[in-house]
């Protein structure tokens, strides 16, 4: 078997293992290690590589931002900031039609600004917002749909763990990616608000009324969210302006959210331990996949499959936009069954080099950033696509009296809003790149 064939065969084997519930990072490691052995015909290169690979992956400055952001998210979850965010949003827009659901989306966006992950945002905001939505007579379908969709704002609005990983994989600037994610994240929030507004007009019985809050109460609630504002300014502002490296910003975020949690009185011995263990689980999961991707990439590079595929696509002279459409569709489908990070680590090393050979009329760096944001957005749609999107399960698990089918129905308007946004972002790269060019 030729090396290219080995490279090609590794994919069905890898996917087969993953679909037979082998942990994704483990499957990548196994295929990467055995693949390198088969291509080179000897164990020596693999054995030598793994004397340092684990250490250089785990003790890497560029990746150190990931556990720090995860720690920040853990502290943010217990800090009570989710409550104050929701209260602030609800006093301002809660009295409108569908207002409590709109407030939920706003609060999710706010929480996304201090938390880099979707499931954590969905779960944390779910605990706060679900009881309130129920109190004001919102249907289970609309409530769970809103929260599942709102949760995806956690990853779109910087900081975003997935964008960090994409930046490391494609050697792009994290600050620029975060900047580019800003407008799409904001559009996502607007799209969800529009979806809710339409939803409650078509189905008025699914939303109740909340009394209008007086202005003094509104401003008091707004004052309560100053820690969120301050942290966001420090962390994201620091990254944007280049005052801090991403790692430094994440360290400030972790210490800052930790302090807020401590001052709010919710940080005790027990919740501290839980935060540590939560950080441990998600960090280890991520780094096992990153290590697996490193092993897999070595094998793929040895097999020369990426070069072969790039050359093949160039030779055939396919329409770039058609390829982009197929790739995004693939991500959408994969996103329904696989978590977003594994998917990106699994596919970017192959797909990205191929995509860079296509001409979309953009400079290389602009293309890398635009494509990264597109992939991120599409992958996140997978998180809320019935029947398997993971956010749906997280939220449905929190809302015990809502049947899963209602959640499926409730999230559909949001999925539609997401798809519209994907089309806009894909058709008009300028939407993503505008903020970037404004500042850099």
């Amino acid at each position, binding site marked *: 078997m030729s090396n290219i064939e080995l490279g090609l065969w590794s994919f069905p084997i890898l996917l087969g293992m*993953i*679909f*037979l*519930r*082998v*942990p*994704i*990072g*483990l499957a990548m490691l*196994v295929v990467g*290690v055995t693949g390198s052995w088969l291509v080179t015909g000897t164990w020596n290169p693999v*054995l030598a590589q*793994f*004397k*340092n690979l*684990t*250490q250089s992956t*785990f*003790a*890497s*400055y560029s*990746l*150190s931002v990931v*556990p*720090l952001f995860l*720690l920040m998210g853990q502290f943010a979850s217990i800090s009570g900031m989710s409550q104050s965010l929701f209260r602030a949003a609800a006093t301002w827009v809660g009295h409108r039609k569908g207002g409590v659901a709109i407030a939920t989306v706003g609060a999710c966006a706010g929480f996304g600004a201090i938390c880099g*992950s*979707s*499931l*954590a945002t969905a*779960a944390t905001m779910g605990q706060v917002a679900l009881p309130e939505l129920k109190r004001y007579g919102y249907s289970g379908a609309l409530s769970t749909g809103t929260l599942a969709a709102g949760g995806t704002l956690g990853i779109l609005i910087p900081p975003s*763990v997935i964008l960090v990983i994409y930046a490391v994989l494609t050697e792009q600037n994290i600050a620029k990616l975060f900047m580019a994610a800003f407008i799409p994240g904001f559009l996502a929030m607007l799209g969800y608000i529009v979806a809710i507004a339409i939803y409650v007009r078509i189905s008025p019985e699914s939303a109740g009324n909340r009394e209008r809050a007086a202005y003094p109460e509104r401003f008091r609630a707004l004052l309560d969210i100053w820690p969120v504002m301050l942290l966001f300014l420090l962390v994201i502002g620091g990254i944007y302006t280049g005052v801090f490296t991403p*790692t*430094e910003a994440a*360290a*400030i975020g*972790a*210490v800052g959210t*930790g302090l807020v949690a401590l001052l709010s009185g919710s940080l005790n011995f027990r919740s501290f331990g839980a*935060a*540590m*263990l*939560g*950080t*441990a*689980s*998600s*960090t*280890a*999961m*991520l*780094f*096992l*996949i990153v290590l697996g991707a490193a092993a897999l990439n070595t094998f793929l590079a040895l097999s020369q499959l990426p070069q072969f595929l790039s050359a093949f696509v160039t030779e055939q002279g396919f329409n770039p936009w058609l390829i982009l459409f197929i790739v995004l569709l693939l991500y959408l489908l994969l996103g329904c*069954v696989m*978590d977003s*990070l*594994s998917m990106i680590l699994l596919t970017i090393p192959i797909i990205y080099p191929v995509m860079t050979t296509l001409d979309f009329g953009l400079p290389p760096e602009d293309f890398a950033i635009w494509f990264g944001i597109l992939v991120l957005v599409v992958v996140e749609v997978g998180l809320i696509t019935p029947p*398997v999107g*993971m956010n749906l399960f997280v939220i449905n698990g929190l809302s015990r009296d809502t049947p899963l089918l209602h959640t499926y129905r409730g999230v559909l308007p949001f999925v539609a809003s997401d798809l519209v946004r994907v089309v806009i972002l894909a058709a008009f790269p300028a939407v993503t790149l505008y903020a970037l060019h404004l500042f850099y």
Partner: protein
Amino acid sequence: MDSSLPGRIVHALARLIAIAGGAVLLVVAVITVISIVGRAFIWAGLTSIRGDFELVEAGVGFAVFCFLPWAHLTRGHAVVTIFTDALPPRVNAVLVILSDLLMLIIAAFLTWRHFLGMLDKMQYGETTLLLRFPLWWSYAAGLPGAAIFVLVALYVLVRSVAATAAGQPPIPQQGAIH
């Protein structure tokens, strides 16, 4: 949770080292913040911490190794169960055992190679650029986590086999939280 003596010991070890890793991660964050404050107040005679990024690398490396046992023990790794959910429990039990066996092999492989990597660094006497501490210290810091990871992988495999033999369903996945 497994209430047998080995089960309790393995759980306690994994929890302890995970929390230790988390605490070091927090210390890394605090060191970084102190360094930033020092840098901001250079005019007032303060200074940033020399080689702070070397401490970050070493500390985060230690922490990630410490996190591996807990994630595996509590089934925290990302898996795709959508296709296997349709299969009978018996088949799933066998698949889980095979996965656990693979994890044990990889855990042992990683630990073995990491240990040899440490010996190499020791032999060549490599040091970090700024702080000049021997590089093998960082490698050595990863070893406790790696060793407990192997122990946990062995325990998890035995637990899965025992549960299957007793006809119990496998421990459900926590799934990915990120």
